[in-house]
């Protein structure tokens, strides 16, 4: 039977990019459907309004939103639509997805992350399970990502370093801020072992992309130089150049149709002109970021799938993951420094590139031997308006006039705030899942995702231990006004799970190759596959796994058609 394309990929971010790249390079025809626009380097500027104060790279919430269920009083769950709350769960709806806006902290998972259950045992109320693959299965793909996406750094000897097949990272570290060596000294004084953070940011021109230009504005902003390893700059541009990959922006897939045999027969999408379009392919790959991937599959009922595609065992949408932890900060006060010290603190552009993973696992009297996480150091986000917002209140009262101006001068001119972020596992549990909302619909009339965001209390206990270590380091650095906060609220930009992979259809959606147990021509290649999330940002692992899935798809199709180019 003739099909429009060999592969149809739904979603163009870190999950979709490696599949599109690999399949096009292997000689197969690829269609990528992306709901957002196709913005390119020349469209991205350091614009606080566009990145962070208006819905420019994400939909207007009145058009497309989520319903968030939070723990309320007396065990009830309170649902709030995000158009009401303003709590935005979109992270980048454009070609390349949210990888356009990442900071590019590229830590690998460690071997222990693949076997939490067998290493640490069960935790009551948490659905912890080992992965069906081990670190060794993913390692070659981490290596591939470092080369093809472009990761800068140095693989130094380190107590908790992961095994590597290549001796070093392919690009030298990005230029570092003077604070980095001060962090090293403070850590050494405390007996901590800081590591140099690998970044998915090119430190020299390569692969048709420019080097980082060190504007100091990276996370939340699109990259104008092409140095950031977004799926768009690093992979999709190359896929399109093969002549075998077509990207269709403004194509919002709302249904995947399946036939009486349980195979996908076509997908339907809303085009920009309001029409509904249909395409078919031999293999379909869903990669819409965890929440939207579960939503699309739940909405795609068919003759064999009354409860959603690949959901005859009621596993779809369950065990959604975010990242647990929190954040802390301390002020590096200019009054504690001489002129040279102040000038060093004020430098804008170079990266901090320091993290602590000494407590990736740890023993603690109350908790026992547990999985921990990492602590990442970074300057306070450079956005100015959000900083000024802090200055408009004093003792619960609005401040304006000359007192406001003096407060702004203090907030901006007397110190620089160094932050840390704690990343630890968000334990999978029965109160964190995606369903379809029964009332709220998007602008095309389709039910939106309802997301229950229950967190396991263990996560906060672990996070608190790590945050105290972060505070210790800030204190050693001489920071003032040190504080930290660890809570149950999820960061919406760190999503995974919902379609966990495993060996049995009874308790997982995908098999070890990320093919749906119940649908032979369906793969899921975003972070949805993860049964446990590890305690580092997800993008690197999503990229690596998507390259692995691409190899399985190529094998299923009979191997490469074209010599690799």
């Amino acid at each position, binding site marked *: 039977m003739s099909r429009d394309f060999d592969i149809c990929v739904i979603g163009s971010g870190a999950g979709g990019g490696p599949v599109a790249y690999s399949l096009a390079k292997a000689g197969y025809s690829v269609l990528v459907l992306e709901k957002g*626009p*196709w*913005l390119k380097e*020349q*469209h991205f*500027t*350091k*614009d*606080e309004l*566009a990145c962070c*104060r*208006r*819905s*420019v790279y994400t939909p*207007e919430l*009145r058009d497309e939103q989520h319903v968030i269920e*939070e723990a*309320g009083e007396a065990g009830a769950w*309170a649902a*709030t639509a995000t158009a*009401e709350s*303003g*709590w935005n769960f979109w992270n980048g709806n454009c070609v390349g997805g949210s990888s356009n806006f*990442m*900071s590019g*902290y590229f830590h690998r998972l460690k071997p222990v992350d693949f076997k939490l259950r067998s290493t640490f045992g069960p935790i009551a109320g948490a659905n912890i399970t080992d992965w069906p693959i081990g670190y060794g299965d993913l390692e070659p793909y981490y290596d591939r990502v470092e080369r093809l996406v472009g990761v800068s750094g140095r693989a130094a000897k380190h107590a908790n370093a992961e095994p590597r097949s290549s001796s070093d990272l392919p690009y030298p570290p990005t230029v570092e801020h003077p604070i980095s060596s001060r962090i090293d000294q403070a850590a050494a004084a405390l007996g901590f072992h800081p590591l140099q953070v690998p970044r998915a940011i090119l430190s020299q021109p390569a692969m048709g992309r420019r080097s980082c230009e060190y*504007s100091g*504005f990276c*996370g*939340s902003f699109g990259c*104008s130089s092409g140095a950031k390893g977004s799926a768009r700059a690093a992979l999709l541009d190359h896929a399109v150049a093969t002549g075998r990959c077509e990207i269709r922006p403004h194509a919002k897939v709302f249904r995947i149709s399946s036939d009486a045999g349980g195979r996908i027969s076509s997908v339907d999408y809303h085009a920009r002109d309001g029409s509904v379009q249909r395409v078919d392919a031999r293999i379909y790959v869903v990669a819409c970021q965890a929440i939207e991937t579960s939503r699309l599959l739940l909405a795609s009922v068919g003759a064999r799938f009354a409860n959603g595609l690949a959901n005859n065992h009621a596993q779809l949408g369950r065990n959604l993951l975010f990242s647990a*932890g*929190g*954040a802390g900060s301390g002020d590096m006060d200019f009054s504690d420094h001489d002129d040279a010290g102040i000038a060093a603190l*004020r430098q*804008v552009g170079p990266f901090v590139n320091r993290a602590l993973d000494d407590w990736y696992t740890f023993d603690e009297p109350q908790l026992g031997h547990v999985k921990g996480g990492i602590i990442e150091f*970074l300057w306070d986000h450079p956005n*100015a*308006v*959000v900083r*000024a*917002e802090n200055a*408009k209140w004093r003792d619960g*009262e*609005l401040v*304006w*006039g*000359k007192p*406001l*101006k003096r407060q*702004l*001068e203090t907030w901006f*001119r007397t110190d620089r705030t160094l932050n840390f*972020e704690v990343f630890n596992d968000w334990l999978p549990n029965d109160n964190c899942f995606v369903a379809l909302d029964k009332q709220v619909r998007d602008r095309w009339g389709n039910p939106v995702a309802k997301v229950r965001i229950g967190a396991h209390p263990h996560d906060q206990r672990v996070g608190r231990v790590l945050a105290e270590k972060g505070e210790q380091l800030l204190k050693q650095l001489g920071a003032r006004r040190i504080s930290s906060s660890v*809570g149950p*609220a999820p*960061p*919406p*930009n*760190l999503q995974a799970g919902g379609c966990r992979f495993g060996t049995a259809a009874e308790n997982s959606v995908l098999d070890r190759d990320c093919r749906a147990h119940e649908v032979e021509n369906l793969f899921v290649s975003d972070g949805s596959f993860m049964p446990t999330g590890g305690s580092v940002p997800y993008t690197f692992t999503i990229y690596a796994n998507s390259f692995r899935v691409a190899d399985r798809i190529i094998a299923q199709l009979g191997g490469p058609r074209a010599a690799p180019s």
Partner: protein
Amino acid sequence: MIRRSRPVATHNTVRRPELMVWRRGLVSRRRFLIEAAGGSVGLLFGLNPAAARSSFDPWPTLDAVLVQLLPSEPDSPGAAEIHALDYLRFVVNDTKVDREQRDFILQGNQWLDDLAKERHAQPFIALGSDTRDRLLRQITRTAAGENWLSTLLSYLFEALLTAPAYGGNTDRIGWRWLEYVPGFPLPGPGTRYPELPL
């Protein structure tokens, strides 16, 4: 990675406050905003509702309020120098800003002016600076009034600290005052967000 935290008001962010406290606060702020925009709340700024005056021009009052919120000084810019009023004209014509919020920005001026006339028998713009200030402090005692001023302050900060291409921060005067180093490239003609091929 920047861990995105949750907003506390339409454009605010805080670092992970208590969950339900935040939710209640947010929903109630939002409700006040919408009800205020719909004109369904009496006693908005502590005043009996007056009949809407369709002829009322909100801009002179808004100009006066902005100057009160961010006054000019010899060594530092105020609303006048950053062209805050021009920036607010951009905001109220921007479809990327909620309709309710844009209406609210403009309607608040009339409520303030009504209050000025009730208390002082003069329009707001005819009052002296100290009287204006006291009146503004008075309206912060109502949720709608506090919300209105907080909203104006947020847009004043945008006028002070976002890229000059949007009409405020003339010649980077806000950045220079606060010794702030912006990123690059900055938006300009063709790359301001209303002009992007979205």
